[in-house]
């Protein structure tokens, strides 16, 4: 028998049954919910007159639609306030653990899961949010689902799913100066396009990936969905185990030893089959930046906006972004810098930013927002004195939430303005109607805030 991929091992262990000619019934170990994609699912349960099948496996937080200043005050926007209140009521009525606004564990759902030790290797994890792929960094099969599927999980702890194919992305070699994990994933997306991994689950492998911290691995897996993949995963190793050990919900004592034995079996067998394999050399990766309106439209920061002769979509994107083919982005004036989102809002990201801006000042034209991924990240940043470094540099450190990543709350970028953003999507209007998003790493974002124009971090290091 041929060997199994990491994905196969975890997926197969969770198949409850197989519908003839149809999907699998897949058992879910951990279910995260938030205020935006859950209310209709709870309504569905109410209509059917049922409760949660396994309430202890669902955890809730409020993140998408919360303000990032004055979180102790009532939410001003009526609809947002109602949505957050609805989540609180639903969690109470159905017995779901909620880390709501003001709670010491509140934060972006994909930041708090790992940080609390809820996310563990070998698990199946779902959430009504496409960036659930983030949790794959721990060797979990983690993917985003729609609200009808949220209802399935609440009602039965299972979802009906078709098994995706397996795709391997192997990256080897040391990274160049100024290149971090966000650049790796923007580079990969630019090579395989925004739909290149549709129908697949990705496994990231190779020496470059092995050398990354857990935070950096999460950034990589986070953006799997931007290539169309259902999820992405990385085999757990000593770095993973060290990260998990001692966290709030991590196994302890004998249970830890037992779990660890299982976790150590979670890797792709040497003779396992992948449907597709891509290999990249880390030496080819430079600091990256996007110029268009999907995350696959990325270039090396000192490259020129490419020509695409006959694609109307390409022209539409450049028109929206106010850019010309052949133009360089370096030196372009930028008034907004957003550092945050489930891609880059963990403590390591804030440390990176602080290391660049320490003792310097942002350019006067720039508004620089730093949104920590969770309450715990915010507290830790203050403990480490990062808040002072950021504030002295003129950056605004705010409270946790999704914020300008999707512009559901008041944190929006004005129409027509450029924003260098550490988030994951540069879709039209994503950060506010007419806003022009340029995706980049926290290093590039910090460098840009200092100069007020798109800047190659390597020139100011």
């Amino acid at each position: 028998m041929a060997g199994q991929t990491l994905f196969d091992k975890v997926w197969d262990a969770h198949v409850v049954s197989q519908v003839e000619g149809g999907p699998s019934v897949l058992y879910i170990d951990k279910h995260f919910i938030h205020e935006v994609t859950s209310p209709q699912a709870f309504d569905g349960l109410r209509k059917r007159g049922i409760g949660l099948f396994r309430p202890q496996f669902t955890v809730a937080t409020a993140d998408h639609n919360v303000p990032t200043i004055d979180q102790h005050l009532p939410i001003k926007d009526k609809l947002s306030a109602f949505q957050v209140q609805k989540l609180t009521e639903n969690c109470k009525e159905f017995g779901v653990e909620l880390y709501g606004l003001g709670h010491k564990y509140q934060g972006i759902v994909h930041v708090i899961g790992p940080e609390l030790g809820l996310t563990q290797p070998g698990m199946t994890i779902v959430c009504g949010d496409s960036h659930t792929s983030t949790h794959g960094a721990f060797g979990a099969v983690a993917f985003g689902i729609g609200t009808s599927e949220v209802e399935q999980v609440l009602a039965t702890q299972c979802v009906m799913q078709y098994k995706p194919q397996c795709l391997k992305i192997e990256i080897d070699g040391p990274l160049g100066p100024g290149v971090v994990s966000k650049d790796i994933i923007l580079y990969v997306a630019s090579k395989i396009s925004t739909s290149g991994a549709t129908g697949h689950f990705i496994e990231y492998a190779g020496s470059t990936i092995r050398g990354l911290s857990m935070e950096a691995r999460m950034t990589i897996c986070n953006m799997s969905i931007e290539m169309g993949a259902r999820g992405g995963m990385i085999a757990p190793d000593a770095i993973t185990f060290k990260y998990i050990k001692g966290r709030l919900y991590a196994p302890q004592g004998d249970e830890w030893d037992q779990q660890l034995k299982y976790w150590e079996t979670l890797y792709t067998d040497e003779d396992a089959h992948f449907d597709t394999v891509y290999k990249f050399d880390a030496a080819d990766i430079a600091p990256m930046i996007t110029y268009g309106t999907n995350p696959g439209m990325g270039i090396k920061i000192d490259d020129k906006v490419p020509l695409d002769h006959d694609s109307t979509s390409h022209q539409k994107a450049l028109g929206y972004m106010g850019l010309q083919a052949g133009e360089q982005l370096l030196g372009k004036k930028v008034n907004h810098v957003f550092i945050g989102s489930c891609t880059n809002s963990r403590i390591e990201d804030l440390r990176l930013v602080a290391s660049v801006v320490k003792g310097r000042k942002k350019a006067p034209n720039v508004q620089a927002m730093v949104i920590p991924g969770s309450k715990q990240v915010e507290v830790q940043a203050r403990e480490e004195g990062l808040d002072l470094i950021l504030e002295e540099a003129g950056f605004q450190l705010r409270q946790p939430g999704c914020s300008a990543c999707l512009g559901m709350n008041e944190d929006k970028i004005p129409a027509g303005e450029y924003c260098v953003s550490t988030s994951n999507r540069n879709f039209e209007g994503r950060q506010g109607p007419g806003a022009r998003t340029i995706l980049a790493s926290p290093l590039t974002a910090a460098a840009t805030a200092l100069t007020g124009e798109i800047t190659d971090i390597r020139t100011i290091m």
Partner: protein
Amino acid sequence: MQPFKTICSRAIPLVVENIDTDQIIPARFLKATTREGFGENLFRDWRFNREGSPNPEFVLNQDRYHGQILVAGKNFGCGSSREHAAWALYDFGIRVVVSSFFADIFKNNALNNGLLPVQVSQDLLDQLLEYLQHHPEAEITVDLSSQQISLPAASLQSHFEINAHKKTCLLQGFDDIDYLLSQKEVIAAFEENRSFA
């Protein structure tokens, strides 16, 4: 869920590739806590100018184009998992989306809401888009039971694939939750016998 019937309707050609769910329904309209009413803001920022007036350039604002079928460029529905995108299309009156490629989560969400994604070859898609732009009155027929899509006026016809299970669900208006609820004992037995973790 309503059972899916054969649809015979005029179609709306939307010649844009990689339409993401943020375009289908922008995030600022996701504050509602029910499933209804999202159609009003379908393609909001393409349909309306910033000050709120309809954008006459956009197909949905052009009287000559209407119907229950949307024909769109490849990689439809990428991006966010928001099911609101499927609800918005359905609420607007769309029952079928035709494209040469669909994003996975969108496809699932659509199927779970009685909205049929019909995947055709790039070649056929190009022909459909081309013809519909010049002949807005032409009708497309989508027959789920025989898995056929046709545009008789242009003598175009093709078979499309759909998973047998999903097809039955759609035809009968039966959803996955009904099925899963009938499996609770099997699920509980699975929990008992887990050999790992």
